[in-house]
């Protein structure tokens, strides 16, 4: 379970997130929706430790942790970026095995076996030796998901998972996220596509642009 209590984040004198709290239960999906500029990406960046909050607490399974400084491999929060940010010079397989081998110190063989399982699971079985530029947007996104999952995260976060894709793929993404939920994955999904967000959500969080800025 991920609990966030009273977090506040400002850029200069503009407060973007003001005393926000949320809870995501294990295996559930939290959808974060709101208009452009409301601070959805900023919130996600705070949760994933890419921005430092000014105040507030984070708890994973009741244990406090600071995503910004946390380097332990136990409370990992995985991220699927809006434009995926795959490593262009590495093959699909290398993209997935890099962190498990270098950070989790898995053996090359073990990491590869694990990666191949993930690829098969995400319908990417034949693409392990290709480079990101050789893949479609939807395939790239699934590689990004596989890469994040290989680190065995407690929570997997997505920023606008439908925005960089063909609208026809929206349902594919829905299915994929729900199937990961069926496997027990806890997920946070930022979107401004309300229907999409409602279809997948166990809980919804509406964020509004902060008035006080």
């Amino acid at each position: 379970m991920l609990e966030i209590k009273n977090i506040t984040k400002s850029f200069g004198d503009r407060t973007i997130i003001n005393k926000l709290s949320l809870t995501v239960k294990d295996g559930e999906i939290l959808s974060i929706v709101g208009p452009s500029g409301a601070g959805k990406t900023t919130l996600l960046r705070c949760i994933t430790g890419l921005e430092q909050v000014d105040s507030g607490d984070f708890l994973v399974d009741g244990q406090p942790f600071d995503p910004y400084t946390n380097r332990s491999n136990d409370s990992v929060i995985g991220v699927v970026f809006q434009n995926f940010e795959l490593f262009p010079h590495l093959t699909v397989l290398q993209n997935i095995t890099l962190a498990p081998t270098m950070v989790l110190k898995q053996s090359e063989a073990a990491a590869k076996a694990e990666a191949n399982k993930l690829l098969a699971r995400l319908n990417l079985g034949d693409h392990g030796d290709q480079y990101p530029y050789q893949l479609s947007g939807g395939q790239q996104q699934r590689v990004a998901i596989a890469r994040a999952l290989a680190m065995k995260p407690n929570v997997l976060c997505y920023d606008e998972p439908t925005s960089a894709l063909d609208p026809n793929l929206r349902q594919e993404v829905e299915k994929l996220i729900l199937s990961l939920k069926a496997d027990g994955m806890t997920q946070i999904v930022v979107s401004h596509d309300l229907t999409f967000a409602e279809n997948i959500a166990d809980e919804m969080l509406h964020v509004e642009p902060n008035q006080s800025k």
Partner: protein
Amino acid sequence: MHYISEILPSLLSGAGMTLQIFLWTLIGSLPLGLILSLGLISKIKPLQWLINFYVWLMRGTPLLLQLIFVFYGLPLIGIVFPRYEAALFAFILNYAAYFAEIFRGGLQSIDNGQYESARVLRLSYGQTIRKIVIPQVVKIVIPSVGNEVINLIKDSSLVYVIGIGDLLRAGNVATARDVTLVPLVLVAVLYLLLTAVTTFVLRRIEKRYSYWK
């Protein structure tokens, strides 16, 4: 023909010296340039400032002046370098400045998303630089580095001024002694050969990096 075979050994030994200076300068200045460029993009202001000054100094004054300064100037304040070492010292410092600027440009063209994606995968700074950043920078900078490398072959003839027996000097000596153009033409041919081989090698390296986009 007979004359050519007579002067060729001395020209070739001059070409050997040119090659030595060329290779040692590359071996010294490429890594040094890389280290300097990491300083240029670091957040430590005084360091940035210092390296910027260094680059400005090295690129803003003629290499010929720097050579003369090291070999004829420094002894006046008690720092004496033998000829060959003086030449390498000046060339390495000078070329490192050019390479630092090229690498800085390459480093800055790597999208911040690549660093963030490495960060959420828990890669350390060193791992990120080695595994993610440098391979991508290398591909970007190969053409500009290649230009400098070709320049270096020709610039190496500047060592003539501090009395090192390189290719140019060998040709010049023969021309003055035998009052014929042949040695100078041969010198030109040898330089052309050196640059042709180097260009070929650079193309091969470029090709090796063309497997991804």
